């Protein structure tokens, strides 16, 4: 196990370098950051030259990347054009998005798994068909539609929540945005659990558990669910990274100042330092989440042992 973890951690290094390099190159290819700063007008050549040398933009790209990576290991994520250190932006934005993600994951686990178990046990029943249809609708409708409709109904029409989240984004204001963010994954969790339960329900070990005279509840929770949740846990684990990076739409709709919001602003203003910094952290989150999922997998399924 220990050797496996070390090997996985070592594997992260090339992945990390590769992804950050890609992002770095892409941000610089997509547009000239200095040009973006000046807007529609042409930049004053003197100011431009000064900015270029100040941010190191007059050096070749590979040198810029190396300098950036070097600073990164000292915990320096660079400075945004407005003079704010990127690390400060990260420090304020990530806690908000982490709160949002936690709420989304809780929704996925509670609602998704519960619906999946109920429908999986009653495959072909009217309730199963209804839930299946609903999940299909949720999967097909884009998040910005779900989000705007939810905001309009709950926030404006029925006045149940504040349509716009305040800057410090406490948990209670993030419930609806969390549900919106979770919606698509929640539908997938439901479907995945349903299929898994329906498949394992007829398995030999469930029959054995019944033949042992165990109460139905115990057969379902301890024997059926335990086995059926293995693929679901994997999905939810890998989804953590996706939710954190993919909250751009949800955060825009509900005016949440999290990672998605900052990324959006960064891209819009060609603020390469911000974009690269945030994406770098997201890449790390993704890698760590994936490693944890793989380790959890071994805990859930004793047949899998990493050497």
């Amino acid at each position, binding site marked *: 196990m220990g050797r496996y973890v070390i090997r996985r951690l070592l594997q992260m290094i090339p992945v990390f370098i590769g992804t950050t390099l890609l992002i770095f190159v892409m941000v610089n290819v997509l547009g000239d950051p200095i040009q973006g700063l000046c807007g529609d007008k042409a930049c004053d050549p003197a100011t431009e030259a000064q900015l270029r040398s100040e941010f190191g933009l007059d050096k070749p790209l590979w040198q810029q990347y190396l300098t950036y990576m070097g600073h990164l290991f000292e915990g320096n994520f660079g400075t945004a054009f407005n003079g704010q250190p990127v690390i400060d932006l990260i420090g304020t934005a990530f806690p908000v998005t982490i709160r949002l993600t936690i709420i989304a994951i809780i929704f996925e686990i509670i609602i998704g798994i519960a619906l999946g178990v109920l429908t999986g046990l009653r495959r072909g029943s009217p309730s199963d068909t209804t839930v299946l249809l609903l999940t299909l609708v949720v999967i097909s409708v884009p998040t910005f539609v779900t989000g705007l409709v939810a905001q309009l109904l709950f926030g404006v029409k029925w006045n149940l929540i504040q349509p716009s989240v305040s800057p410090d984004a406490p948990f209670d204001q993030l419930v609806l945005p969390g549900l919106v963010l979770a919606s698509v994954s929640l539908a997938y969790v439901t479907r995945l659990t349903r299929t898994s339960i329906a498949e394992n329900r007829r398995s030999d070990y469930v029959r054995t558990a019944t033949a*042992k005279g165990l109460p139905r509840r115990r057969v379902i929770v301890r*024997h059926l669910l335990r086995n059926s949740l293995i693929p679901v846990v994997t999905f939810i684990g890998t989804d953590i990274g996706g939710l954190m990076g993919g909250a751009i739409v949800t955060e825009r709709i509900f005016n949440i100042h999290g990672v998605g919001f900052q990324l959006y602003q960064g891209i819009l203003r060609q603020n390469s330092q911000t974009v690269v910094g945030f994406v770098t952290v997201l890449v790390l989150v993704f890698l760590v989440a994936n490693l944890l999922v793989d380790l959890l997998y071994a805990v859930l399924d004793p047949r899998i042992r990493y050497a």
Partner: protein
Amino acid sequence: MLLEVRDLHVEFHTREGVAKAVNGVSYSVDAGETLAVLGESGSGKSVTAQAIMGILDVPPGRISGGEVLFKGRDLLKLKEDQRRKVRGAEMAMIFQDALSSLNPVLSVGQQLGEMFIVHRGMSRKDARTKAVELMDRVRIPAARERVGQYPHQFSGGMRQRIMIAMALALEPSLIIADEPTTALDVTVQAQVMDLLAELQRELNMGLILITHDLGVVADVADKIAVMYAGRIVETAPVHDIYKAPAHPYTRGLLDSIPRLDQKGQDLYAIKGLPPNLLNIPPGCAFNPRCPRAREVCTRDEPPLYEVSGTRRSACHFWRETLDDVDI
């Protein structure tokens, strides 16, 4: 009588129609007795057992008639909650494929101990001690060290021993073993069968041994019930059947055992296939494959004729079959 099955009917509702899996099966087992139920795949032997245990998949399955008297009570009339308490505690089942029948993500100790936790209300710690005792009893070496291991870490024979241990946990009065040795190597088969027979004697349990292996039957069974297309076609004490079968199907089964004195000759096989349960032929279900079939066999369903005090045969020509004369 420990267990008496009377005129049991089970059907499955499928898309294609109603499959009549069990059509009026009656048999009985006493304490300490071994009944071997013999028959091809699809003859209804396993479905009968599942109906007795109460683990039939309902739906699509449905018990459409009959009684299962266990210690005088009709199990089919019990509420599910009472029925559950009988399962595992008073009657237990051993399945064919121990690898798929054991839960892959729970340790064998947890799966064995669970019987004591659920039925006897024991603590986890006591249940674990009991699990080790059980593993010792079915002679699994190093039981104390292996109690925390998972099914995939055991060999096929050891896994089947764990299944047996699980069935024996609460010392039930009846064990149903559904092809317990089919998935095992021949040498291991004998060990597992011997162990089962020994424990049965020790605890004076009734045993229903479902099998298609006539070799196993001869050694351990007291009586045999041969099933075909959801019916019993012959029941007899084990030695009578080997001496002289009273049904052409039993004869066919016996003739298809490979024998040393027929080495080099073609092995006999009953021609044709078992009938489709959605569409069982009228008259005797075996008539399309029967070498003795006459016109009456396609018309009248043979009743279970009384051959002797302990023998029954569902063949219009049981006398001729028994004497092995051609008609």
